């Protein structure tokens, strides 16, 4: 086991290009042992490439990559006994059943926890006797998830593991990851499902165009975001739009709706109080908005990087 002081994953200035396309352009990532780390970014931002480097499938062009105290490229086989992996788009061998795939992948890694496997099959409601060619995308995803979660690996690399799962299964997945977390194991969870990251992750790294743009705990990242306020006051709420940090104000009669930078929240509330607040709702910042702020401009420029 790695000690909790050493980082489970440590990446500095990682670069990787495929021909003309730059997939990773100086990416940094640090995942502490025992934490669930959210790895966020739009499609094509380089999440999958990073994970494939960590798996020793791709050779980095430049940069420092350490994982579980080893070199992912040179020490691949030894490291792979200690980790497990779920790809975002699971392809299986069409003529082999789900149950067989789960057992085989477990054995290839170094052992299957039989009891855990059967529990997971039940929780995820998967029929292990069906040939993989008859599984839907969601069911293929379940096969890979069960294979990974049935292991005792100390590190879980999960690349958008819940794409294709319905909301019920999504919550089963979240319970499983919380259990993994309690056991002190490390998870790197790449995702663009923000509720999932908010529910599970201790810390988050946000990447874009192959670079890390933000990294920290969720509360550290909230300073970047805005709170949405809807308020009804006794006096008509005039002059709100003149306050610093207030955006998108709509005033109708005694009602006002606006967004406010979280840093300016206190000043705005003080300004509202003398008007006689009859009702007020505030919506906390979501990672969705955080995303929009960071990537709002990228959608216009189009996607020019590989995933």
């Amino acid at each position, binding site marked *: 086991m790695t000690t909790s002081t050493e980082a489970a994953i440590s990446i500095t200035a990682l670069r990787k290009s495929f021909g003309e396309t730059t997939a990773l352009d100086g990416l940094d990532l640090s995942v502490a042992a025992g934490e669930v780390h959210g790895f966020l970014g739009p499609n094509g931002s380089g999440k999958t490439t990073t994970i494939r480097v960590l798996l020793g499938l791709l050779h980095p062009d430049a940069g420092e990559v350490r994982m579980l105290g080893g070199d992912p490229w040179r020490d691949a086989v030894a490291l792979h006994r200690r*980790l497990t992996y779920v790809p975002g788009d699971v392809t299986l*061998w069409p003529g082999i*059943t789900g*149950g067989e795939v789960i057992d085989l992948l477990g054995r290839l890694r*170094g052992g299957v926890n039989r009891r855990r496997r059967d529990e997971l099959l039940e929780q995820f409601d998967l029929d292990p006797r*069906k040939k993989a060619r008859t599984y839907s995308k969601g069911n293929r995803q379940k096969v890979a998830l069960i294979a990974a979660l049935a292991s005792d690996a100390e590190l879980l690399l999960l690349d958008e593991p819940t794409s294709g799962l319905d909301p019920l299964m999504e919550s089963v997945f979240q319970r499983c990851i919380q259990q993994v977390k309690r056991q002190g194991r490390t998870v790197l969870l790449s995702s663009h499902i923000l509720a999932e990251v908010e529910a599970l992750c201790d810390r988050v790294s946000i990447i874009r165009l192959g670079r890390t743009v933000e990294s920290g705990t969720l509360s550290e990242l909230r300073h970047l975001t805005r709170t949405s306020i809807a308020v009804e006051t006794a006096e008509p709420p005039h002059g709100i739009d003149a306050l610093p940090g207030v955006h998108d104000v709509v005033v109708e009669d005694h009602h006002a709706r606006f967004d406010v930078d979280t840093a300016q929240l206190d000043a705005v509330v003080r300004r509202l109080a003398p008007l006689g607040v009859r009702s007020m709702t505030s919506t906390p910042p979501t990672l969705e908005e955080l995303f929009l702020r960071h990537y709002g401009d990228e959608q216009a420029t189009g996607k020019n990087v590989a995933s």
Partner: protein
Amino acid sequence: MTGTLRLLRFLLRRERIGLPWWLLGATLLVLVQSGQSQTLYGTPEALARMRETIGSNTAAIAMNGPPRLLDSIGGEVVFEVFTFVAVVVALMNMFLVGRHTRADEESGRAELIRSALTLAGLADLTVGVLVFAVAAGTGLPVAGSVLFGAATAGVGLIFAVLTAVAAQVFENTRTAYGAVALVLGAAYVLRAAGDAGDGALSWASPIGWGQRTFPYAGYRWWPLLLPFGVSVLLGAAAVVLLTRRDFGAGLVPPRPGRATASAWLRDAYALAWRLQRGALAGWAAGLGLLGIAYGSIGNSIEQYVRDNPQIADFLPGGAADVVDSYLALTAGLSALLAAAYGVTSTLRIRAEETSGRSEPVLATATSRLTWLASHLSVALTGSALTLVTFGLGEGAAYGITISDAGQVPRLIGVALAYLPAAWLIIAVTVLALGWLPRPAAVLAWMTVAYCAIVTLFADSFDLPGWTQQASPFAHTPGVPLDDLALTPLLTIALLAAALVATGYAGLRRRDIAS
């Protein structure tokens, strides 16, 4: 009905790439055979000699059809080519109908069946017209050519309707294909047994019905009623079955598989064998049957060559030592097929890689070396196995005709002498996979094609000697005609080992594609 028409137009558009190749394939078979037969047996004397040797050869009759066809040159063409054309046309119909009835149920099922069967009917009509045109165009009598074309279309129609029925019975397309392929195999075997015997069993086979119209050799029209009548009945059955099954389901639910992996499925080697065992069994059986076909005419070959001096040009030893040169030629041919098997098996590595299926495996404690070795172990032992089944089949069939059981071990040994050459082609494939993964498949098949061309045609095309020096087959002693020499075989095997090692060095340092 307008819906059916609209759907038909859509299906035609989707088929415009694939279908022409099937039609071309069937047409070319007839074209080549008609030309070749009229060259070799154009005179009544040549045809009579042919009838004498082949007409009394049970194996040749089992492979081709009833000897009565040999009464005329047109019939001889039908005799040689009909079973092959029938198989091609049956498969064309199977894929055509299977793809469209099962693939896309959303568009209205009854209309889908109607339009898929109409499409198949149009394709069969086209095949019939093309066969007629090629046969008549190469100088065969017109009336017989009409019968030839109609009989071919009849076989196609039967298999189109059979596939429509199978698609109702089974839930997934592969199982339906398996069932239809089984019927096709049975149709071939039944007519082989029937034609070799008293002919009764041939009447249980759609291929047999076609041949029993005896185009150019007796002209019987009424057996055509069988395929067309049966097709109407089966088509009605498919529609009835359609109304009895649930949307998306089959009448027979798929068999559930294992809930847990058996104890032996525990490492990369077990996985590679599990993935490839079906294909290997198919190739081994195919080469075994080819061996039986070749072996069974080994004894007639000497007389055959004396009758047809042109054939001797194709044999490495000329007219002398005719049987041994024939055995050397067929063994070399089987080794080319074993090499082709080895290439398909080795390219599986690339298919696993690009499909993303290798990724979960390589993310476990499976090294790249183990991953490569697991699939390569199938390619290397599999190519040896196909040569053994070929030698077994050829030895058994030849041994029976000359009453000599010793031919079995002898011809297995002969076939295995060509194994290092097949391995070298596999090694070239590994080299390409390591260093040039993208064009690896093209490079590997170009290697096979080069070896095939220089091995089979160098002498008859008078290619200069140096052109074949790069082929491992040129350096393999042509046993049993030549003496067995171990040095060249060992050299080829060592070279293969070196190429595999170099290929692995490339595979170890390159990125794995996704």
